């Protein structure tokens, strides 16, 4: 029975979640590109937003790249560079912990603001509330997994030997779910919650992260638009 659940959770579910992410992103960008915005509520409340938004965004960007490094750089590579495992882990814990707490503090302020400020709350959609709460959950899980469970209860656990390997395997379609069965429970819940966020990412306000305005850096300041001439394909 354990194997069936393992298969569902660590083989089927990740693909459903990532499939939803890519499907939703393509549909949103291609068909509903017109309704993508950062959904700012700065007009309605400014002071709490300043602290919360800056802390959260900077924190979460570092956290994101930390995850990318943790998953995509195999242990063999750092071994090859001669970085000892302990040094790597201390570095990851300190930097990841700092970024994680930044994101957590930011999200706590933002969530408090969203639920307590009447203007912001009344103009929020259901998905805005879901996004706030799920980020809180996933950040708390992530921090407690690496700082409490990983260091106190399972000091022998090294995610780079199983979790990261499994995550990489997802990208070449050979995930071995047995690897995930060796992973402690909080880590596992964190992974599932994280995948859930990816699953609903494109259907919520989060999609603004995919539309960074790169072209602004290169374009001329004043934009002119000409009406298309009739007959020209448009």
């Amino acid at each position, binding site marked *: 029975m354990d194997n069936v659940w393992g298969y569902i959770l660590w083989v089927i579910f990740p693909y459903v979640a990532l499939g939803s992410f890519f499907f939703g992103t393509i549909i949103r960008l291609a068909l509903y*590109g*017109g*309704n*993508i*915005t*950062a*959904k*700012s*509520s*700065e*007009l*309605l*409340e*400014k002071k709490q*937003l*300043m602290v919360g*938004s*800056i802390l959260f*965004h*900077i924190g979460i960007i570092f956290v994101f790249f930390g995850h990318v490094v943790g998953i995509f750089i195999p242990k063999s590579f750092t071994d090859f560079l001669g970085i000892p495992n302990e040094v790597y882990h201390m570095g990851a814990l300190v930097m990841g912990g700092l970024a994680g707490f930044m994101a957590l503090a930011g999200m706590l302020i933002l969530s408090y603001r969203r639920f307590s400020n*009447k*203007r912001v709350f*009344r*103009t929020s959609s259901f998905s805005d509330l879901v996004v706030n709460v799920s980020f809180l959950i996933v950040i708390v899980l992530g921090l407690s997994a690496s700082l409490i469970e990983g260091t106190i209860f399972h000091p022998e656990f090294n995610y780079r030997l199983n979790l990261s390997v499994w995550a990489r395997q997802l990208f070449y379609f050979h995930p071995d779910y047995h690897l995930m069965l060796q992973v402690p429970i909080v880590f596992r819940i964190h992974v599932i919650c994280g995948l859930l966020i990816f699953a609903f990412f494109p259907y919520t306000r989060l999609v*603004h992260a995919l*539309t960074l*305005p790169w*072209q*602004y*850096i290169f*374009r001329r*300041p*004043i*934009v*002119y*638009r*000409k*009406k*298309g*001439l*009739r007959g*020209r394909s*448009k």
Partner: protein
Amino acid sequence: MKVKAQISMVLNLDKCIGCHTCSVTCKQTWTNRPGAEYMWFNNVETRPGVGYPKKWEDESHYKGGWKLNRKGKLELRAGSKLNKVALAKIFYNPDMPNLDDYYEPWTYDYQTLFGKESKHQPVARAKSQITGEYMDLTNGPNWDDDLAGSDRSFGEDPNMQSIESDIKGNFERTFMMYLPRLCEHCLNAACVASCPSGAMYKRDEDGIVLVDQERCRGWRFCMTGCPYKKVYFNWNTNKAEKCTFCYPRIEEGLPTVCSETCVGRIRYIGVILYDADRVAEACEEPDDTKLYEAQLGLFLDPNDPEIVEQALADGVDMETIRCAQKSPIYKMAVEQKIAFPLHPEYRTMPMVWYVPPLSPIMNYFEGKNSIKYPEMIFPAINEMRIPVEYLANLLSGGNTEVIKSALYKLAMMRLYMRAKTSGKDFDPEKLDRVGLTEDSATSLYRLLAIAKYEDRFVIPKSKKEKVAPVAEDQGGLGFEQCNGCALAPVHGSMLRKAKAGESTKDIYAESFYGGIWRD
């Protein structure tokens, strides 16, 4: 040289009575929907006053418009492109106005007035249109209308700060004027330059500045960039909106709604040709007081055959050129120099210009033997009730000389016409001193005082037969979720009745009952 055509407006403040008809008709047309309740694409401010949003002219606070950097080059006051990323401004825009700087929109619960009979007189209390809660009103549109609370608002008007303090509080010398404001459709629009998404643009054919609702991602830098604070953020669609210069009407050769409905006939719309290649150079004029003249220098004479030839080569069509030749804007701004841009020191090259007001002085003056001694106006204008410095801070970057010569001209024109219509003698040489002739004074009088519809509005029709459907090109989304436009369901229900075979008479009797329209 690159010739471009710009549609622009002049407002004759001398005739504005502050009735707010322009604001109301504009609101009914454009911002009568959820998320847009607090927006006034057009608003009328009493001056001196705080304005809307509060203290919008205080650019040390809002950081709108352009400034010159150390090298003398133009730079957005809110910061360069790099600075927006480096200081995390993309996550939080420190210079953006808050809803309270405008006002929290409200409505009244009118139902309580018609409910069951109760012991007490029913009262309709103000209810926020955002939270739905009852609210105590402490601020609202035109809260300081007609100098209400002016003891407070006088000091909050940034234009008052460089004027001697004795005028400020002295109520015997209290003055006021009205300032209708809309988007300036600038040649060097700071909002367009601020938009990270490239959603804001100037239309190539007439220079109208629009927000593509499809491309807008709600980064809000346009709101900071615009020094006139005329780009608004819709909290419902989470996108920016602004005055459209009623482009669907302009394309049909019709004036904007605000101009069409202006009861004082103070608004003029026309085309002006300018040299797009020299705009940047003019904006980089280091002296604030010379920016008005720098902008004037950009405008091209539409009657010059060489300019016409160049304009045609640059893609301006013949009808636009013909309209530019008859343009009331060109006449007032360039030929007579009686119209001025609003705050040229923001360096955006605004294209809604104003004729400075004169009324208080004429009241004081007309009772005395003014026709006999027309030169009396020269000292009189210097002691005008509305200080010339105030007008200069508003309209010419502090250049009082140009404002004075416009006021002399307007006053002299009035004296001349007064003498002419009352059969008195008037020495035409007096006109010469302010740069008028008998002919030009008469034609200026016709334009300003008679203000015939066809003289005020000279607007080229767009060549729809040559271009693809406009709506698609301008970003087809429109202002979505337009639940607030209540007329559609009303007409819809009547259309359904008509389709079901009810006669017009029946529908009329049903809906228009005892003089009250029921929907």
